């Protein structure tokens, strides 16, 4: 039987074991190397997974199933589809980069690397688990290493941020856990007895009373909305982002937030299609508020990491908005935006971290003129800034446009209001870039070094992908779309707009005379 997914998930644990067994005898450099080799190996394995994955098949693939605790119906079930494959790849891709970016960490290197590796297993596990309780275990397991990364290696207010992050997410997960147990308790009547198997529960959830399903939807939503984060449950994010070490911010923005949006697609939409439609407006409005709110709040930040953090709130709002449009373009755009935001914001945090290592400040007011001192670093930063701004030809634009177009066809207000954030993004990102890069150089910053070899190696693959996914997004969408289509099929009843492209094409073919007014 194929064990590839298990290997992807647990290979980092092998690294943990090596570092643990090595103990004090392991020099810091060796610990770093072990982490790097392990994460790269994991990435290679995930590439093999990608190779074996057939984008044309809509369902779960490479499924592995084993009993774990049969007494309570807990199984070890993992599998990938077109949505999770990209998130897994994004994760395994960003981890070696994060490890390499953490080279300058000097404090308790072995512990740090153990936390990183454990985090990778937990995140990959969350994306692959097809058993609700197994997912919950991985989902919660993310918190522990992340807590230590923020609390142990963060900056001044790290303890506050770490505890806030931990408690906030835990509070959300409590609802997830209750809802999971409720579903489980209802599954005892099934043939195989009580189970946490997502596929079995999907069947079951369809038969639940409408009100029950709606409550369960909300319980799941709260857990994931905290993680996304969806307005107004976002306030842990700026603190966590700001205080976390560079790699922590990169991973937080790059992959951790996506666990939330992924959970919404995988669980909320799949399990409770009727409730998803029922709450679509509520969630969309929150998403639009979040998009604008995050952008407006970012306008005035003085701490550059906080600014990027608020921009994440805004960008993740796009993802949620796209998902709840229930059109092929909207949802695909949302998933695309997950990957793209991970890359673009990941790059921003990497670069901000590199600047911080040199200038030892995150205050915009204390930077300035850096472009004259470190042209390559700031040039790279500008590239990432424009990717984030949503410049066509770079990756974020594709997702953003698909979300806006996919949403506009369903609700013009949501689409148009969300587009306003595109203006605001240009304002806050360019404003901050100007404060950092342009103007006269400050005396204390003269003589700072430009990108070194390690940093170039860290950045090059990310930047390359920013361009590649902007010019040829088909690489991503070809795999995403069938999986998305399957989700939409469940959520949206026949006769509704699910494909913005299709509806109109038919009208042209039939030669229908003016619509327009009717749909408005």
């Amino acid at each position, binding site marked *: 039987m194929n064990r590839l997914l298990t290997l992807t998930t647990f290979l980092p644990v092998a690294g943990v074991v090596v570092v643990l067994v090595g103990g004090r005898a392991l020099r810091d450099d060796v610990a770093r190397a072990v982490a790097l080799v392990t994460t790269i190996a994991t990435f290679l394995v995930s590439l093999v997974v990608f190779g074996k994955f057939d984008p044309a098949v809509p369902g779960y693939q490479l499924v592995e199933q084993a009993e774990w605790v049969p007494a309570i119906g807990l199984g070890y079930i993992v599998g990938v589809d077109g949505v999770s494959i990209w998130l897994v790849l994004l994760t395994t891709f960003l981890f070696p980069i994060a490890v390499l970016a953490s080279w300058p960490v000097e404090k308790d290197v072995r512990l740090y690397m153990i936390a990183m590796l454990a985090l990778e297993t937990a995140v990959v596990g969350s994306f692959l688990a097809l058993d609700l309780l197994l997912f919950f275990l991985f989902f919660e397991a993310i918190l522990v290493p992340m807590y230590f990364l923020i609390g142990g290696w963060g900056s001044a207010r790290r303890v506050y941020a770490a505890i806030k992050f931990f408690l906030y997410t835990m509070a959300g997960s409590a609802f997830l856990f209750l809802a999971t147990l409720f579903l489980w308790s209802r599954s005892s009547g099934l043939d195989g007895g009580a189970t946490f198997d997502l596929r079995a529960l999907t069947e079951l959830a369809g038969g639940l009373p409408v009100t029950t399903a709606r409550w369960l939807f909300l319980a799941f939503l709260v857990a994931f909305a905290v993680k996304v984060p969806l307005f107004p449950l976002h306030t842990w994010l700026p603190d966590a982002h700001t205080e976390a070490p560079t790699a922590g911010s990169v991973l937080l923005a790059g992959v951790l937030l996506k666990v939330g949006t992924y959970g919404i697609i995988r669980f909320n939409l799949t399990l409770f299609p009727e409730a998803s439609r029922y709450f679509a407006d509520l969630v969309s409005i929150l998403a639009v508020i979040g998009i604008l709110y995050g952008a407006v*709040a970012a306008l005035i930040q003085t701490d550059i990491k906080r600014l990027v953090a608020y921009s994440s709130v805004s960008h993740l709002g796009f993802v949620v908005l796209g998902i709840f449009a229930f059109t092929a373009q909207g949802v695909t755009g949302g998933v695309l935006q997950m990957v793209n935001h991970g890359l673009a914001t990941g790059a921003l945090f990497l670069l901000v971290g590199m600047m911080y290592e040199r200038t030892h400040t995150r205050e915009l007011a204390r930077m300035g003129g850096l472009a004259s001192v470190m042209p390559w670093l700031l040039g790279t930063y500008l590239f990432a800034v424009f990717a984030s701004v949503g410049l066509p030809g770079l990756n974020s634009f594709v997702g953003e446009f698909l979300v806006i177009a996919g949403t*506009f066809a369903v609700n013009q207000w949501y689409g148009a209001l969300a587009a306003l954030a595109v203006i605001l993004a240009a304002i806050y990102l360019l404003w901050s870039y*100007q404060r950092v890069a342009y*103007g006269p150089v400050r005396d204390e910053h003269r003589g700072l070094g430009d990108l070194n070899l390690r940093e170039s190696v860290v950045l090059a693959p990310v930047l390359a992908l920013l361009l590649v996914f902007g010019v040829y997004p*088909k690489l991503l*969408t070809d795999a995403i779309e069938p999986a998305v289509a399957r989700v939409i099929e469940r959520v949206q009843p026949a006769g509704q707009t699910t494909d913005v492209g299709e509806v109109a094409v038919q009208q042209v073919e039939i030669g229908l005379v003016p619509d*327009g007014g009717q749909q408005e």
Partner: protein
Amino acid sequence: MVGALAPSEATGSLPLLWLVPSLPLAGAAVNLFVGRRLGKAAGWLATALVAASFAVAVVVVLDLLAIGTEERLYVQHLFDWITVGAFEVGADLRLDALSSTMILVVTGVGSLIHLYSIGYMAHDARSARFFAYLNLFVFFMLVLVLGANYLVLYLGWEGVGLCSYLLIGFWYEKTENANAAKKAFVTTRIGDTAMMVGLAFIVWKFGTLDFEAVFGSAGAQLTEAAATGIALLLLGGAIGKSAQIPLQVWLPDAMAGPTPVSALIHAATMVTAGVYLVVRSAPLFELSDIALPIVLVIGLVTMLVAGTAALGQTDIKRVLAYSTVSQLGYMFLAAGMRAYAAAMFMLVAHAFYKALMFLGSGSVIHGMHDEQDMRRMGGLLRRMPVTGWTFIVGAIALAGVPPLAGFFAKDQLLEIANHTGRPVVWILGTIGALLSALYIGRLVFLTFFGSARTEQAEHAHESPSVMTVPLVILAIGAIGAGFVLNSTAEGRIAHYLEPVVGEVPHGDGLPVWVLGTIGSTVAIVGLVLAWLVYASGKVDRAAFEERLEPLPRTLRNGWYWDDAYAKLLVVPGKAAARVTAFVVDAKWVDGLVNGVGRGVGGLAQVGRLLQTGFVRSYALVFLVGAVALLAWIGVRL
């Protein structure tokens, strides 16, 4: 309305079309990464590649001309860009009469400006970077005009915005340059966002962004309201890019960039993209009853506001900037009257004479060692003859003196206004023509005539030939463009563009020769008036302007649009952001979260008081509890 064209087969050199944008892109890539090692060669490489692109464009367009007018359309599919469900966007290039006109202008004028830049940027340490950006700009501009669907157009649209940002802020050590760059990008982004929503609107109604598909079914697909919505949203983008009211404020500040940039981006090419967009989207605009009238009014108002503001400027480049805004207003005016071919003719002619004048002003600034204030110049014609005379050619062309390019363009426009029963437009347009003659006359007489007013002006020197040769070529263009493209309503360019943009509107009104006479008289009167005030020595210039206060100051500040925006938008916007971030977010939303935390902490504070440390009291509580439990069980039994 224009019917859809049948795309023709790939014949002759047409498949080479992709080379046109690719060559500058290659130049940009090379210069960006290894430009510094190339040294002087960087500029020559960039110029050569744009020139090569021009050559390819000429060859391709010649082959296009060989095709019959009804099939004069070639679409090249490069690769699938975005495909989601039934919604497909290809990376497609489209060559037709309209885009072929544009690529010739972009690559032609572009290569001259590149050549000029070699001289202009010779002493700049980062000149390789400059040429990389300039090449990149040409690439995006070509993508913009060659795009076969709205999304590819939008790619170029945003791309030129990016290059504009990079180039305005090229000397970013100065805060004001960086500010101007950001202002330009953000202001145009406002329009761009409207345009993006417009694209979403089109997707909603058509399910595609392809020009042929959209225009082909527009009549059947759109209600009047929907067409108005789409047209106005697209117009938003056009207004931003072409610096029309109310988004015109960024262009004068954009003069902070190196002068070749002002010539290429902020005069000849990028700012005309808005006109191109309106002309390209004409089938959509025409479905709406109010869209084109709005275009017309915006053009008219912009023309007058900017034309008057140009009169008050003292910085030579800012005069030209406001002049550009004003001239773009003319083009919008033309498009608003459905005279698309006239708009395009104006666009081409303007590209020549305005690029010429910007480059000339750059030459002046170069010769004056970075002095831009016209009050500190004077008498430069003798010291910089080539620059001076070519500039004068450009100025006469702009003023509309026959038989130069500007005359034909403006004359045709006013003729259409008169012949289609728009007397107000005609009169205001004529006043606009007088204004342009006045401000350009003022510029020329202040700069090139009279006596040198400063030491610098005394010692100004002519620029090297790498800079003056492009001036001469452009001057020939400014003289000849009118003849070659021909003026009258049935002229050559109108005929060429007809399959794409339809016929120039006709009607009855004053005879053509009367209109032409009025037009040229107005131009000459304007120039003479300018001479009287600024060069004849009969009028005390300073006292004259003093007496008119506060008008000159108002004009110098561009009618205070910037200040109004600062007070009405920037200040409240910042306040709103501050409230959102530091009150709503920090105090309320996060306050609630931290409040929950504090609440739990407070309860715990109370609860821990129970922990007295007296072992015996614990024992007592234990006993009481045990007894109570037993009693409860006993009662239950």
